[in-house]
């Protein structure tokens, strides 16, 4: 017999309505059948480039690696018509190194904070990490929620923590990582989305995953969150932004995600203030497909810079 979700969670689900799992999966399966070609494909690819949060989150990251990542974010390719990416995403210790290169540039600096990726540190420590990152120059903070508390039904605790982090952010944009793979059901993802959105400011993000677990952003959980954003927007008028992260490696996938945005939230969300991709390998594939569209010949992946190691 299935375990009943905690009472608080059931109450929230009654209020916001559950998710039709079969319906969601059927719907997202159709996104993969759209035919996007030629000029519209080029437009979608360039839009996707401008939405990338170019990410490196590894224990072996160094200031040098972050520097090359920043340069790549500023000028992804020789082609001047290709925009720079939306942001780079690094660990808090490396924010000041990124700041040196990205000061006065359109590329923002995002930093994961709050004991990423587990979030298992005392709240005071997490808030101190957020404040330090913002002080070093981070424009955006990616926080993780306490999944354990959420699943145990301590929803008020989770929400209070998000509020506390939001306060600590000051002017910086906040992105709340739900870590969908650990929430286990679409219902929980929807509930967590609402929980976060109710304490966020317009323009703050909800984000699927850390990229550190086995399963990351999928069209399915992306759709559940987009639906939640739409319902919340219609109800309150507050536009919340969205960032799927992890597992989006190919241009084809990125276009499918954009189709989901277009068909769920409309053109207002098709810009990098409202939608982002948290990715490392994706950028190179986008550039590769843009080069293919330009030259007509399929390109080899090694013709595109790999700054170092992992991306």
């Amino acid at each position, binding site marked *: 017999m299935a375990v009943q979700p905690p009472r608080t969670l059931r109450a929230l689900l009654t209020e916001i309505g559950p998710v039709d799992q079969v319906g969601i999966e059927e719907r997202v399966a159709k996104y993969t059948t759209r035919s996007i070609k030629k000029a519209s494909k080029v437009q979608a690819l360039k839009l996707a480039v401008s939405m990338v949060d170019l990410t490196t989150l590894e224990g072996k990251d160094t200031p040098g690696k972050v520097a090359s990542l920043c340069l790549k974010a500023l000028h992804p390719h020789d082609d001047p018509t290709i925009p720079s990416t939306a942001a780079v995403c690094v660990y808090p210790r490396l924010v000041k190194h990124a700041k040196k290169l990205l000061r006065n540039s359109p590329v923002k600096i995002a930093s994961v904070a709050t004991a990423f990726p587990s979030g298992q540190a005392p709240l005071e420590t997490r808030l101190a990490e957020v404040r330090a990152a913002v002080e070093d120059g981070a424009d955006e903070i990616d926080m993780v929620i306490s999944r354990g508390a959420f699943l145990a039904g301590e929803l008020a605790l989770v929400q209070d923590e998000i509020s506390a982090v939001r306060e600590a952010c000051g002017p910086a944009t906040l992105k709340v990582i739900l870590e969908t793979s650990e929430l286990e059901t679409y219902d929980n993802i929807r509930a967590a989305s609402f929980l976060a959105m109710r304490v966020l400011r317009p323009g703050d993000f909800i984000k699927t995953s850390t990229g550190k677990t086995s399963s990351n952003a999928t069209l399915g959980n992306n759709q559940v969150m987009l639906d939640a954003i739409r319902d919340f927007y219609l109800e309150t008028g507050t536009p919340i932004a969205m960032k799927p992260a992890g597992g989006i490696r190919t241009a084809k996938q990125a276009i499918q995600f954009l189709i989901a945005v277009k068909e769920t939230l409309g053109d207002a969300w098709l810009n990098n203030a409202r939608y982002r991709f948290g990715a490392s390998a994706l950028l190179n594939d986008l550039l590769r497909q843009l080069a293919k569209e330009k*030259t*007509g*010949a*399929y*390109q*080899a*992946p090694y*013709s595109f810079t790999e700054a170092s190691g992992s991306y």
Partner: protein
Amino acid sequence: MTRLPITKTPKCYVGGAFIRSESGRVYAHNDSAGAFACNIPLCTRKDLRNAVETAAKAGPGWSKRSAYNRGQILYRIAEMLESRAGEMSAALALTGASPTTAAREVRASIDRAVHYAGWTDKYESLLGSVNPVSTPHFNFTVMEPMGVIGILAPEEAPLLGLLSMVLPAIASGNTAIALASHSQPYPSILLGEILAVSDLPGGVVNLLTGKRADILPTMATHAHLRAVYAAADKTERTEIQRGAAEHVKRTVFIHSETPCDWFEEKAQGPYQIRHFLEAKTTWHPIGA
């Protein structure tokens, strides 16, 4: 009670799996008497693109295997072909080869696999060298595989011709994508089934079927293919060279205007392997 015939759906062997063309298209394949035999996938440039991706993924693993192990696997191909020799002969006879000719082509194909199985750990000592230099250095030239090789197999000798082009490419650690004979595709379908059980890692050999005109331009221009090995006529050769020039791709041709004897000794050997090798020379100081 009569039993309904269970006919096989021919599928292409790509990435260790059996695929239909992404286009969903097929072409009818008739036997020598003109009767319908089966539908063969009509692969497109997108199938080629997908095959290149999977071949590129398989490359590092295949080239890192020891030369001896690659030899064992190539020999295993011969073993598997031997055990299905009857079926393969029947496949060749489908398009008109006499039973004797078909059996001879299968035998020669098995021998060819054994031939290249022997070469995998020997060509290096023949083609590589230790070079005399006037400074206190050891100077070596070692042979390394190029990467992903595109192959356009000849129309005739649908098994022997195909294998004679694929085997020397993969013997050194390259991976290959081959377009099989358009008029006699069925032996390549069967060959895929044989390769699938030959311990050959998925993606090392990828066999497509379809029209040359659909595949050739993309094979010529695809930057990820490091070389094209083609049995081609004058017009096709020109087109391949034009496309290959953009990314400085190596081209190796078999002129299809002149009949090629695939059975002869000249159709095999280490110099076929050398077509798809890159020479790397290193200087190593001799101890002070």
